[in-house]
């Protein structure tokens, strides 16, 4: 095992365990904190695969932004009496059946591929930010503009819903 392998399995196991933790915990705050670990673990995997830009974005936006948003959401929600926001699981058996069936097919599908990946991962140039910036404005221009418009729609919607909230 090379040090890279050790790091790979470390991040993999941490991410996996934290992910299972999210499923098992009933306290929403605990789930949010475990989500931070999952996101950081994935960021670690990104670094190992030399996608530094994706890793930085992952830490900044997901671990930094989204989880803080979830924490705020929990704090601003009306609390039950004991002060803890709890969740529960419904339809455990059907969900188990569907997901294990899907898991079976995924394992089969991946095992049948030999080698698993048939194509070389494209090597990014040294200056990833410049490359990604240029790609946004050229190859991915339609997607980029669509995302911008989606954000506008969401912003308008959020402002509108918040404005009318007091009427209820």
């Amino acid at each position, binding site marked *: 095992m090379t040090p890279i392998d050790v790091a790979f399995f470390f991040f993999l196991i941490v991410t996996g365990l934290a992910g299972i933790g999210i499923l098992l915990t009933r306290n929403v705050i605990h789930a949010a904190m475990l989500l931070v670990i999952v996101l950081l673990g994935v960021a670690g995997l990104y670094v190992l695969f030399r996608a530094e830009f994706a890793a930085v974005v992952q830490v900044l936006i997901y671990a930094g932004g989204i989880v803080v948003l979830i924490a705020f959401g929990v704090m601003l929600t009306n609390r039950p009496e004991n002060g803890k926001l709890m969740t529960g699981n419904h339809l455990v058996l059907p969900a188990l059946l569907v997901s294990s069936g899907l898991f079976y*097919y*995924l394992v089969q599908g*991946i095992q049948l*591929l030999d080698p698993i990946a048939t194509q070389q991962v494209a090597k990014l140039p040294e200056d990833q930010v410049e490359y990604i910036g240029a790609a946004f404005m050229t*190859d991915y221009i339609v997607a980029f503009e669509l995302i911008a418009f989606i954000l506008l*729609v969401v912003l*308008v*919607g959020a402002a509108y819903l918040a404005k009318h909230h007091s009427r209820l």
Partner: protein
Amino acid sequence: MDLLTTLETIIAELTLLQSEIAILSGAILLLVVGLFRPPTLVLKAIFGITLLAGFLLIGDHDGLVLNQFVQLDRQANIFKYLILASTLALLLFPSHRFQNVEYYFLLLSAVVGSFFMIDAHHLLITFLALELTSFASYILTNFRFRRSSFEASIKYLLLGAVSSAIMLYGISLLYGASGGFLLAHLPDSKLSIVGLLLFSVGVLFKTSVAPFHIWTPATYQETPTEVVAFFSVVPKVAGLILILHIQQALPESLQSDMILFWMGLALVTVVIGTFGAIYQKHATRLMAYGAIAHSGFLLPMVVLSTEMSFGAFVYYAVVYAVMNMGIFYFLSLHDQHQITELRDFGGYGKQYPWLGAAIVVVLIALTGLPPTAGFTAKLFLFSTVWSYFHTSGSLLILTYFVIGILSTGISLYYYLRIPYQYFLTDGRHKILKVSKVQIVLVTFFAVVLLLLFTRPDILGSFVVTYP
């Protein structure tokens, strides 16, 4: 290719999307004008002009552009016209106080999303277009601002978010299987099939195909009726074209596997829609189940590629849009007087016999019986299915054929419950006021349906056929 020439190509190719760009600019203009709190008439005018501009600017380019992200399909252009016409028809509906800037802005953005669903080739665009339409829909669901509409909208949002997440997971598997975001390069492997199944969840959710239909009844019941008319036509037609393009882009070996999947779901959808409708007491909810059943009828024509399937789909989609606009227009006339439950409809047939007669025609078309265009549409559908059965001999297709015809019979029962209440019972607990113009409009929808039955070739002159 250096950056400058790339940019020049992009600028040249962006003009091919001028219709989408026009609607997008109109939507943003609406927001800016909205800052000055203009009267509703101004908003309606901008909304209408934007749609007309979009109408005129639809190009006739064919092929993949913008680095294979966008697929322009001249044949599918008819659906862009259909989407714009249906959206424009919303202006006919009775006015409400919630028709403000945001309302028209969100409708326009859902139209842009639907256009990109038709245009999408790259899976990233597919996903973004679906999300754009969905986000606009989530917010539009809530425009009545009642506690129950909040509930419906949150349910819709949560189910939609889950289906988008499943779809993204599917896309990531497809990326793993093919090393790219284009369906044409998929190898024939189990991983591709699992990826495709998960990917299709997002599209099937938008077209309310069972088992991804659960949001439909609750959302339709709580959404303003003209928005329901919009939901039942625009995103659904766009989603079905998306399924058509997905099916066409797949390599041949995967196509036959997927047809079984689509047809199985279409069968389940028809059954669930038909039997779900029987027990409904709320008029819009009843129509929601009817719309689910119609999804099950529309789906086979986009996935079975026989000689006549595309023409049959065009005809069915146009008739479906007219029928739904007609019935939801009728329901919105009653809705503004709080007549929503089926038993509230009792007795108005004596007050407005002509309105009742016109809506009977629309409902018979929804059932699929002569002398309306609904019958011709069903006829085209079942002959498509039958001819596919002849070439393939698949038992599933035969089952679909039999069940489809049987459920058409059953649907007569629940569609005719509104006229039954209207003419044969006596209730009239609430005051209903319908103007002459509104009766003429409902009659217009009925006449179109009769006309398309006697002269189905009228549509043919609108569908520009390209060699």
